[in-house]
């Protein structure tokens, strides 16, 4: 059962990702990416990371991709990016070769022979007993409290930056 679900979600994610790169219209690319993100959310649930799955859908599908669609619609990039698509054969081949190399390297590195380091304390039963949300929350607010607070600085900087950039003229 788990394999079946993994294969479904995995194949959908992979196919949608490839579709995103191949689609010429940006709006279809965005839709493919949304599909890939959903499949990935399913994989998170298979990995018993319910909180991450919900946050993933909430943040990526609910906010980030809506922003993408909004910008695509705002700029009205309907017909083939407005300019004739001039694919650079050198660029494409270099990209494909690079990606092929990377994939081969990663595949060699992550084969079934992979050895895992020492296990932590949060096995499946422990997490289930306290609840996934509670367990992640405890770690987040104890061991990672300072980094967590620092992310708010990143968000604030991004907020200010986006407003300054998007403003037409600065007074």
């Amino acid at each position, binding site marked *: 059962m788990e394999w079946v679900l993994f294969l479904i979600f995995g194949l959908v994610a992979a196919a949608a990702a490839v579709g995103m790169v191949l689609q010429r219209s940006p*709006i279809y690319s965005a*839709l493919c990416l949304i599909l890939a993100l959903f499949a990935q959310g399913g994989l998170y649930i298979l990995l018993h990371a*319910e909180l991450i799955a919900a946050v993933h*859908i909430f943040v990526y599908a*609910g906010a980030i991709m*809506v922003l993408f*669609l909004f910008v695509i619609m705002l700029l009205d990039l309907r017909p083939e990016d407005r300019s004739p698509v001039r694919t650079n054969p050198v660029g494409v081949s270099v990209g494909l070769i690079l990606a092929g190399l990377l994939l081969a390297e990663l595949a060699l590195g992550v084969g079934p022979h992979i050895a895992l380091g020492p296990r932590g304390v949060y096995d499946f039963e422990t997490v289930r007993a306290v609840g996934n*949300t509670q367990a992640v929350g405890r770690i987040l607010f104890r061991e990672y409290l300072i980094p967590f607070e620092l992310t708010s600085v990143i968000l604030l900087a991004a907020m200010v930056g986006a407003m300054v950039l998007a403003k037409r003229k600065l007074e």
Partner: protein
Amino acid sequence: MDFLFATILKIALVMGLVLLAVAYLTWLERKVIGDIQVRYGPSRVGRFGLLQPIADGIKLMFKEDIVPANADRLIFLLAPAISIIPALIVFAVIPFGPSFVITDVNVGLLYVFAVTSLGVYGIVLAGWGSNSKYALLGGLRSSAQMVSYELSLGLSVIGVVMMAGSLSLVDIVEAQKGSWYGILPRWNVIPQFLGFVIFLLSSNAELNRAPFDLPEAETELVAGFHTEYSSMKFAMFFMAEYANMIAASAMATTLFLGGWQGPLLPPVIWFLLKVFCFLFLFMWLRATLPRFRYDQLMGFGWKVLLPAALVNVMLTAAVLLIFA
């Protein structure tokens, strides 16, 4: 196997109830607004117009299904389906009674927010796929509006989560059990009144209903994102709107009015009664208030609701810290 069977039965029951409620909400809304505006509302088909939803359904099904020539066909066909599915799957985690919930998940509240935030895609894609200026403007407006109000909607319930200490909707309802001094029910609406008001206002905006119905403002945008839709595809947008309205009322009941809790009557009845009150409130608002102007809408969301929601979070945290 028993578990699977029971779950499927529950899903069928809930879906049947919701779809029936959607059909009769259209009738009820027309009746209520008619009464408020001193008219009759539907009165011809059946006694008190009770068969009106069926007549409407038959009419919509037999109408010609038009796809505009310049529309993006795939997106145009996909959009109504995308808008109705999230509206229906929200009900998977809503607790109707102590043991009457399809599934109680650990991250229930986040699930609801994740799913409802997908509703905007149906509207945005309908606006884009129709290839018409009214539809596009409606779609753009709604995406900006829904993303803005989602923030205050999400922040308004943080106080409830802090008080219950859980994201599970069943736990949140259980936390509102009992009463203060034997008279006041222990519902979140009393300590979280500010959060409750913010939740109601921003869920009304998320629903794209009057006075926040900018995306389909008929006086300026013809009908907004669904201008080009006809027949059942048009009906699907309407069903999504009403299903979302029920879902929002059910969420308000669960989070702030103690869900199924109440004396004497059976729990499910209490739940449905409270949901009905919210539905009536939404209709009342629509019949009473004029539409916002666009800049007022954005200003209200960002400059009033959002800071108020943040204040609510801070206050709740401070009070919990002092008294607990």
